[in-house]
């Protein structure tokens, strides 16, 4: 398989090859991989890549998938313009 052509994270354009290389280096938790490859930090917040990476980690570390901890979900669920937040405040007062 040409791992360069397998897209894992669309937001940050991360391929399976990059993921596997990092796992081979010893980074075998989602949070570590996220910090280096930026997976899960894009605008979809790991919605798509999350489960793919979870599966790859389970295979690589030989761990049942339910034991592979996935990424932390943080607000916001969709991008909000800073000025929209300000506008809402202005409307309140």
């Amino acid at each position: 398989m040409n791992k360069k052509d397998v897209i894992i994270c669309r937001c940050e354009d991360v391929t399976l090859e990059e993921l596997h290389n990092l796992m081979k280096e010893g980074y075998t938790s989602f949070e570590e991989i996220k910090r280096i490859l930026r997976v899960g930090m894009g605008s979809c917040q790991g919605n798509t890549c999350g489960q793919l990476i979870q599966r790859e980690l389970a295979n690589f570390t030989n761990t049942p998938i339910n034991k592979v901890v996935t990424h932390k979900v943080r607000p916001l669920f969709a991008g909000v313009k800073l000025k929209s937040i300000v506008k809402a405040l202005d409307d309140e007062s």
Partner: protein
Amino acid sequence: MKKIDLVIIGGGPAGLSAAKMAAESGLSSLIIERNFKIGGQLVKQTHMFFGSEKQYAKTRGIDIAKILVNDVLKYSDMIEIMTGTTVVGLYKDKVVTLLKDEKYIKVKTKAIIIATGASEKVLAFEKNDLPGIYGAGAVQTLMNVHGVLPGHNVVMVGSGNIGLIVSYQLIQAGVNVLCVLEASSEIGGYKVHASKLKRLGVDIKTSHSIKKAIGKDYLERIIIGKLDDKWEFIEGSEEELIVDALCISVGLSPLSNLLSMIGTEMKYVSYLGGLVPLIDENYETSIENVFVAGDVCGVEEASSAIVEGYLTGLVVAKKLGYIHPNYDKLYLDFKAQLHNLRSGPFGEKLRRGLEEIMR
């Protein structure tokens, strides 16, 4: 900041039923729906549903949506509906932040029912980002909502009920479905759906999967292959197919991000499709007054989602002091319906999964 006693996140079958039952009990609510129409996935389901009469069996999904929407509209004085609105933040002090168009809205509430449903799983294969590769849900939206064909020659990946049903709908739309690929050694969905496809000449290839997509700017061909019992491709089994669309339907996973965001206790349960919240017998999560209903706490059929919606709507209302005149009778009935829907062999994995998340 806007104040309302109950916020229901998701205007699909679970959310709508919850709102209706809460309203019947006397509790007002606000439904937040990301799409521009309420009804959830039902609005693109042109097939008849299974189940029993109480869950509108034999009615087409699109018509079940109409029934549920009408039920809610009858309570327009008690149920506020915000469509085209995304929940962007969910905070522990029960403030829900919303985005509608570019407008940011903060809502303070006492109780939340999260009925966000599920999202489609994706597959990692070569060139999986080529235009022409769709999720089954997107194909349904294109075809059944917008009347647009995804392609002329399509291969479906996945033989669960959705894969089988969408393949049938593709044929109904005049699309040539070359085959359905199933990685496992057996068909995943109901066999009645499989038989329906097979008699229309569609091959269902078990122990097969997509190996690679080929195309310059868009999908032109695919390579499929046979899998061994470890789900590895068997060398030499490759086959090239000329397609202009590939439809991926390899399962759903609960859309539980908002629950993670607010910090409810969660567990990964494969039988339920992924990460789900721990719940009690009334679908209340580890955070008081945060409830779940529908696929978000385990992927099932719309029929169960509807009943779970009714149940949570009933229970939330009671917790906030609005007791339905028929509370006891309804409560038992909803419980019995859920039991009935899940008691067969197809419900076995689900039953085991649900046991795992009971707190």
